[in-house]
């Protein structure tokens, strides 16, 4: 049962990862690319973490996976704000 869940969730995670990366390449504008990058890819990471947690031997690994995904969410939130501010300033400021 655990293996089936791993297959399913890591597959879904890969789909979101591919969608996010395709969006990063195909979107016309900096700000729309940010959406693809920070949202789709992190969701893919979340599904991959969920899928891998079914394989985890101990609860420590599951907690570590959740912590890593939480940190990546925080990182993505702050990074997208910082990059958007910089892109905005580059377009309007200088």
């Amino acid at each position, binding site marked *: 049962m655990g293996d089936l869940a791993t297959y399913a969730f890591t597959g879904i995670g890969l789909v979101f990862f*591919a969608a996010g990366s395709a969006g990063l390449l195909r979107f016309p504008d900096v700000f729309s690319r940010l959406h693809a990058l*920070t949202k789709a890819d992190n969701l893919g990471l979340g599904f991959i973490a969920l899928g*891998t947690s079914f394989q985890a*031997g101990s609860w420590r*690994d599951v907690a570590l996976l959740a912590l890593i995904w939480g940190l990546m969410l925080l990182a993505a939130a*702050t*990074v997208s704000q910082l990059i958007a501010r910089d892109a905005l300033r580059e377009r309007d400021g200088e």
Partner: protein
Amino acid sequence: MTAWLSFVAVGVLASLGAALLRVWRGPGRADRMMGAQLAGTSGVAVLMLLAPVEGWAALDVALTLSLFGALAAVGFVKAVSADGGGDPEEDDEGIVEPPPAGGASDG
């Protein structure tokens, strides 16, 4: 199971390739920074996938890599500002009027 996890890891590496393509082609510096951020995210994903295969110590590496991803962007923004001090609030008046396209108007 190992084959499937390796297959998904290769798929995630393909997205790392997409990130490098964005770094190469990205018109603006913001695009290149996004490529670096995606490289960090896909690195963490590969480490997560290979943890059951190679050994759960890979998770500690993924934890460290995820922190570096965040700090890389902070370094990028700080390096961009004139004196390197890089307080994002310092020259807010640099943006003369809100962007016409209804972008994120801050402050």
